[in-house]
């Protein structure tokens, strides 16, 4: 999943970006509102984290401009102002959640994941597709209750595919949402990862959970299921 972090305080920006990357997110960073405005419109962002107190273009105006452009990705605002007037104003202008500084990084991660799930139509931290359950909190995968070990990058690919289960995801889209840098994108790597995932998810080659839509991309074949239907 690709995030945009707009924060003018260098140390906070770098430290947060590092932590988010370590959690498997692709992170674009912007040090001011103008950069944030450009990045938000230019890249396929899944969610943005925006500091309200930006020096050049206040965070609230940045969000308003994004929304005016029709950008609908979820936005988490970071604010030092803890008043409800500010929080409500931020949420009314188009943000989806707020976090008051100084926050715990774990809480930030939980809120970002919740926003990403919400944007994709998921309400729970566990993504359930058929008998496959991807726990986004614990970063674990199970099939019929049996744990399947996957690598961090395999997790990122599978998370994106399961998040958009039932929909064909092109290689370009997948790579855009998984890599920050264009230079890192290599479709061969993706094909290898998909191949490894298929072996791990379906060793007997009976289920074919990740199917290839020729010339279009990949699709996680199993539809979403709710917890009660397990």
């Amino acid at each position, binding site marked *: 999943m690709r995030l945009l972090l707009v924060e003018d*305080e260098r*140390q*906070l920006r770098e*430290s*947060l970006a*590092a*932590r988010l990357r*370590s959690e498997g997110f692709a992170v674009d960073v912007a040090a001011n509102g103008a950069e944030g405005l450009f990045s938000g419109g230019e890249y396929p962002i899944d969610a943005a984290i925006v500091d309200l*107190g930006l020096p050049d273009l206040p965070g609230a105006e940045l969000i308003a401009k994004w929304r005016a452009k029709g950008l609908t990705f979820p936005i988490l605002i*970071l604010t*030092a*102002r*803890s*008043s*409800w*007037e*500010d*929080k*409500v104003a931020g*949420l*009314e202008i188009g943000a*989806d*959640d*707020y976090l*008051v*500084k*100084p*926050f*715990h*990084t*774990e*809480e930030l991660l939980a809120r970002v994941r*919740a926003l990403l*799930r*919400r944007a994709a139509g998921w*309400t*729970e931290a566990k993504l359930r597709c058929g008998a496959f359950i991807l726990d986004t909190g614990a970063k674990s995968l199970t099939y019929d209750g049996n744990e399947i070990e996957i690598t961090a990058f395999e997790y990122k690919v599978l998370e994106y595919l399961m998040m958009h289960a039932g929909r064909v995801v092109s290689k370009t889209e997948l790579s855009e949402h998984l890599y920050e840098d264009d230079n890192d994108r290599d479709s061969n790597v993706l094909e290898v990862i998909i191949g490894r995932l298929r072996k791990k998810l379906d060793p007997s080659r009976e289920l074919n959970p990740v199917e290839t839509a020729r010339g279009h991309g990949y699709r996680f074949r199993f539809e979403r299921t709710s917890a009660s239907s397990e």
Partner: protein
Amino acid sequence: MLHSLHSRLLIVAGVVLAAFLSVAAAVLDHGFRQTAKASVQERLKGQIFVLLGLADLDRPSQPLTAAQIPDPALAMPESGHYAQVYDAKGKVLWRSRSMLGLTVQWPGERAAGNFVFEDAISSTEERLFCLSYLVQWEPRDKRKPEVYTLQACEGRREFNSQVHGFQRSMWLWFSGLAAFLMLIQTAILRWGIAPLRQIASELRAIESGQQSALGGNYPRELQALARNLNALLIARDTHLQRYRNALGDLAHSLKTPLAVIRSILESDHRARAIADALKEPVDQLDATIKYQLQRAATAGRGALAPPVEVGPILERIIVSLRKVYHARPILISGTVAPAVIFYGDQGDLMEILGNLADNACKWARSRVWVEILRDKPASDNARPWLRIRVHDDGPGVPPERVHEVMRRGTRLDQSVEGHGIGLATVREIVETGYVGELTLQCGPQGTVAEALLKFD
């Protein structure tokens, strides 16, 4: 009634007018009585001169005869007009026929040649004005001069009738005059204090939120007051805004470094020991900054604060919370009783509602609902109080820990971010800003946080 400036002035004007008219009436009455008495005196003096001219004092046994008396009133019994002549010892030598059956006391020895005017009472209890004149008469036979007293009296009936007539007429005129003057006075007062009425009316309009400043064209004496009041109103809003902006900037400059510290400590696994050691002081610092800044930002009840409609504010808070708690299956709803108005700062109301509802959302299992009601104030003239009840169906706080949770920075469950500061903030705003109280009632059905706000 005495709280009205107009009534006060009218009462004072009425009292002064009544006092003035009473004094004027007393002076006029006294003057009229004196004039009437002088007139009686003159009349009696004329009568004495007539009697003196007619009397033959050389014949003291019968100085006058009935035929000589020209005034018929002196011949008619109980006519109220009497005359008599005394010798030096007070023996009556002659009395008019009108004195048939009555006597008037001898006035006593007086100096010759002087008129003495005095009140007297006849033997029939008739009140009289009597004028006495003592003459020293030298008889023709050269005897030693004799002293005689001529006395003419007049009953007070006519005098009293004149006085009463005058008084009736005077009070009639004075009553009319007083009524007319009061009407004029009322009109003058209304016209004179009309600018004050206008100021009062405009202040009410400002209080009710219909206008933001005094706009009337006031007389010179009130222009400075109106100008200063307008400046005060503008200064109040801009000052509060500037103050809050400054607090916001302060919060930004204090909290961002804290966020950096926390982020670095939590990101670097090698610094786990340092992070654990610094966690509590950083949390305390954060809680103190949050609490003190919010405390400083509390505006409270303000003079001429425009009323805030509670319904739209609650709606905004609920919509925001539904967005924030979208991932959790919580039903958030609210009801506002009709005509509920908050007479204070909108920011304070948002803090109270936001913190209480947010706190309830953090603990609720499936439902949070907010009730806002009007409450009867202590005195009839005061603005209605506001009662905010926020219910949740969460596990609640044990009764013995309710007091603890209301204390600044207390967090019962560390896993729920932000709990504790919110309630302490609300308590601070409610108690210091609105002389109210915040209570927390916990039961098996959940928790009810209730804030009572007063605007007296």
